[in-house]
């Protein structure tokens, strides 16, 4: 019965619900910020906000790619593994003497190639995205360990630009935050102002109808998984710079954080509905939680409990509104 009523959306309520739907996650973020800063005013200090933005950047970048994937009704569990493998390969190139910036670019492209593998397994191989990316996650993780022999790759030199990439500031703003914002703007345009975005939504909304409307669904999907891989690798490059090394186990369970950000941002896991702005907010919510709970001195054990509960509450509130 519920399942049927759910689809009940009359024309007029649509407008109102679109508004609350758009503002829902933002409202959640604001409430969270108010709570945290009342409990510990140092949260609002400028340096902390800058730190927060930097901390959020990695998850946000991955989550942007994940947004496209989830909008098509898919999922990408391999993002963390791609991050690790691309980061190891990039570091390897740097150590072997390649120009770091050039290495980062190649690393991102390699991440894109790993994404293409996912995309081909899903479109050509007709595998469920969950299981295809679960398998490639295992494989990429294994390859990372094989490549690094399980050791971190260090000795990345002190190229200034490379260090800036993860740790520096530009006009007073952390560079990773700038990377995040620029990427956001670009992807926002792609998703909401360009045909590619429409196709993404269409595939998630009704794949059969999208095919019949002449959309090259396999091509679009492969491109989207490639995007997800590329962004994971970009996040990996930031991490490599921040950690001044490539860690073989980097990015473990980052897929879950990214998915949580997407869902907190109001995007539906069944595809076709959602917005990338929501994902940005979702990533900020998770970042604020991590940062805020640390500032409040909550033990890491309880932090997990609180994070889980916040996710549930946020999603439940979102449901309520649209019901």
């Amino acid at each position, binding site marked *: 019965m519920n399942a049927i009523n759910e689809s009940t959306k009359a024309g007029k309520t649509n407008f109102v619900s679109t508004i609350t739907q758009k503002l829902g996650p933002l409202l959640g973020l604001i409430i969270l910020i108010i709570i945290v800063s009342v409990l510990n005013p140092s949260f609002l200090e400028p340096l902390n906000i800058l730190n927060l933005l930097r901390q959020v950047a990695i998850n946000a970048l991955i989550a942007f790619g994940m947004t496209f994937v989830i909008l098509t009704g898919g999922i990408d569990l391999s993002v963390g593994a791609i991050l690790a493998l691309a980061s190891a390969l990039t570091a390897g190139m740097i150590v072997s003497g390649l120009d770091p910036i050039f290495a980062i670019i190649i690393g991102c492209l390699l991440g894109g190639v790993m994404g293409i593998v996912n995309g081909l397994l899903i479109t050509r191989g007709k595998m469920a995205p969950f299981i295809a990316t679960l398998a490639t996650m295992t494989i990429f993780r294994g390859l990372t360990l094989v490549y690094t022999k399980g050791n*971190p790759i260090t000795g990345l030199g002190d190229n200034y630009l490379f*260090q800036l990439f993860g740790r520096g500031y530009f006009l007073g703003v952390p560079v990773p935050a700038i990377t995040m914002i620029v990427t956001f703007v670009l992807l926002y345009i792609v998703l909401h102002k360009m045909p590619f975005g429409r196709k993404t939504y269409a595939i998630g909304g009704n794949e059969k109808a999208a095919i019949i409307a002449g959309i090259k669904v396999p091509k679009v999907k492969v491109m989207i998984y490639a995007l997800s891989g590329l962004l994971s690798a970009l996040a990996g490059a930031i991490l490599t710079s921040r950690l001044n090394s490539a860690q073989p186990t980097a990015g473990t369970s980052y897929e879950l954080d990214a998915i949580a950000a997407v869902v907190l941002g109001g995007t539906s896991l069944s595809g076709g509905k959602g917005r990338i702005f929501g994902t940005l907010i979702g990533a900020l919510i998770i970042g604020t939680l991590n*940062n805020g709970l640390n500032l409040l001195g909550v033990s890491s054990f309880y932090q997990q409990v609180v994070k889980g509960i916040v996710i549930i509450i946020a999603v439940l509130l979102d449901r309520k509104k649209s019901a």
Partner: protein
Amino acid sequence: SMQPPEWAQPAKKDDLKDVKIGLSVSTLNNPFFVALKDGVQKEVKALGMEVKVVDAQNDSAKQINDVDDLIQQGVDILLINPTDSAAISTAVQSANNIGIPVITLDRSADKGKVAALVASDNIKGGEMAADYIAKKLGEKAQVAELEGVPGASATRERGQGFHNIADKKLKVVAKQSADFDRTKGLNVMENLLQANPDIKAVFAHNDEMALGAIEAINSSGKDIMVIGFDGNDDALKAIKAGKMEATVAQQPDLIGKLAVDAGRDVIQGKKVEKNIPAPLKLVIKE
């Protein structure tokens, strides 16, 4: 620029009366680090100071965020138990930038200025284990090695130390990673026994895996000597009960205590040793 903008720099504190210590632990899912944390907290309490604890859950990226957050809370000194020596460098450097002294525990930092490192010597410990086996079973005995989480510094160092001796005196017929995990230690050991029935001894990079291996060995009915590393409660009990041969015991609570003491000295402007060794001892059944 590599520095945060002027307007965002926190005001430097000069009131040293109520000292606030920040402790960043690599993980609290492991009794060793729990004991280390407890050691810190106990000493802090004894000295009448205050401590903030954050837990990186074995994630290097989370750890440098954690350190940022500790700095944000205005700690006067940072005790860092790094998840990884290379990865922690940036965090140490950002603390250096603001002038907060850093002491590392159990593992070092590759870069940045560290006032002191308090640690047991893992390489030495690995050597102790190999020496003990060679002494007990004679040279060229067949041994297996259960490795820790790939890439973790403890895995590398303990393995390195073990092989320093074992490659000369023993015959390492099998090595597999069991991720410092007891369940994996059990399953991996079962399978290793199947493949290498003539193993005489096992060196595990930590006690958890050793205890798992013991369960596997017990059900196989074989008599194999197991040496662990860490000296946690379970292992000590097992040694007492005669189930486990020995463990290279660290004293994590002591590491914690020594670190706090060193921190106090740093703040009071006293000179401290760059390397503060925490005693390591081989525990066997008396």
